[in-house]
């Protein structure tokens, strides 16, 4: 059990009605590792994350967390098994204070005896501490993204799923998101990162899978980040 990867997806298939959205997808993420998932719009990246999190039912295959299957479980159950999703569009509670948003993240802690402190989150993102009494809706886009990531981390998950964390952010903020992800990997988390920014993702991740039409087409390593031709052909389904 102990040598099982933090997250393992095997032959996953998801359909929306009769339309297959994800077909035969298999991937592993170990602790201290970032695995990227890139591909064009509608390729099935978000659907893969949603299936892992129990938000959409899988038709076939299996998802295991530290060796135990989580397939068919409710999202809150999976959250309390140590999987946290930073959803697309951040989905923070704008009318709640920053601190209340973070306290909500504590709902994902596996036992009530766990460390319920928010200090770790505030150390990683000092600006959240400064604004902790402010309504989260008043934060800038970049700060809201930090809040969404911090809210996922306070639950002390083993596996962190991120759905396009750089979406809608100014280039300088994108840099800081990617720096944060590197720090999170060093903290021993298993990170599955869905992104549109292919080159940055390939450069950061230990390996990056290219998803197209619901299927894994190609796996790239950091050394491929500079190889524009390979990147383009991967996207075009070459």
């Amino acid at each position, binding site marked *: 059990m102990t040598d099982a990867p933090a997250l393992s997806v095997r032959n996953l298939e998801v359909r929306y009605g009769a339309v297959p959205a994800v077909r035969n997808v298999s991937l592993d993420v170990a602790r201290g590792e970032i695995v990227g998932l890139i591909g064009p719009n509608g390729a099935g990246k978000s659907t893969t994350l949603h299936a892992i999190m129990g938000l959409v039912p899988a038709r076939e295959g299996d998802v295991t967390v530290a060796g135990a299957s989580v397939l068919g479980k409710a*999202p*809150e159950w999976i*959250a309390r098994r140590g999987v946290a999703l930073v959803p697309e569009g951040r989905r923070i509670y704008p009318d709640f204070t920053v601190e209340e948003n973070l306290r*909500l993240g504590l709902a994902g802690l596996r036992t009530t005896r766990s460390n319920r402190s928010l200090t770790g989150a505030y150390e990683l993102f000092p600006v959240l501490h400064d604004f902790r009494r402010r309504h989260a809706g008043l934060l800038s886009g970049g700060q809201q993204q930090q809040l969404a990531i911090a809210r996922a981390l306070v*639950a002390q998950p083993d596996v962190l799923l991120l759905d396009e964390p750089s979406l809608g952010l100014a280039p300088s903020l994108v840099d800081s998101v990617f720096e944060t992800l590197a720090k999170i990997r060093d903290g021993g988390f298993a990170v599955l990162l869905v992104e549109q920014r292919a080159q940055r993702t390939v450069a950061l991740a230990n390996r990056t899978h290219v998803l197209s039409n619901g299927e894994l087409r190609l796996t790239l390593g950091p050394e491929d980040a500079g190889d524009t031709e390979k990147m383009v052909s991967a996207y075009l389904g070459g």
Partner: protein
Amino acid sequence: MIYAVVDAQTLADAVGLGAVYALMAVGIGLVFGVLRLVNFAYGQLIMAGAYTLAFTSHWRVGWSIAACVVVVVALSLVMDRVVFRPLRGSSPAVMLVATFAIAFMLQAIALLVDIRDNTIGEIATSIAPLNQPTTVHGVEVRKITIVAVIVAAVALALLALLLTRTTIGLHMRAAATDFGTARLLGVQANRVIGFAVVLSGILAAIVSVILTVQFPFVGPDFALRDTIVVLVGVVVGGIDRLWTATLGGFSIGFATGVINGALPTEQTVFLPSAVFALVILVLLLRPAGLFAWGRGPVERV
């Protein structure tokens, strides 16, 4: 002209009615928040509580009230487990119709239980003395009006503290705002919904006690009219937020009380018409809700 006919006593009664309706509005709003379900059967919970008070009239008052709370909360939980939970995720129309069905079923059951002594209606006597008037600054006020206002204020203050200062309160607010994200974060749906249902049941029991003091004659349609009026008030106030729903409940109770006092005695049959004419006017002027500022119209059931 209204000033001439509305005296201090009418105002006191109107505030008392507003307080009771505010409690009912909170009870309906709490469950709506987490389930997106307008519980039309809320009045029948209150009716069940009133019957419990009537059937236990010979008990000591404290025990009678405790029995009322137990029965109403238990009934709320059964309702959630047997009907609401299987229908969770259904369309609002399906859930609304289901609560209509529960309402009629509970009324039918009440009738069957009630009619065993060959009369319809039971009298709850033990707490009726609270209906006696007392004089406050020269105004005659029934003691229950004072009790109702104090109990409503305390209950609403406790609820506000619970929602803003505790973890379960935070989870309830999050669930009411965006349930999907709350579950994603590990907030347990059944626990939050169960808690809202229990709180809503406790409020229904409190309303049972207050209404039974004022109207000790309990029949199967007990609190039915009040519930319809409160549901209208909640929609007028803005059902998607607890405090606007509460204000809506209070406002329609207060308006009903004032109009009731202002109408000449022989014309009180026009009370519902007058109240609902006011409601139509409000909805024409503020379709998103009387207290909904700065937001677009919301979909209503």
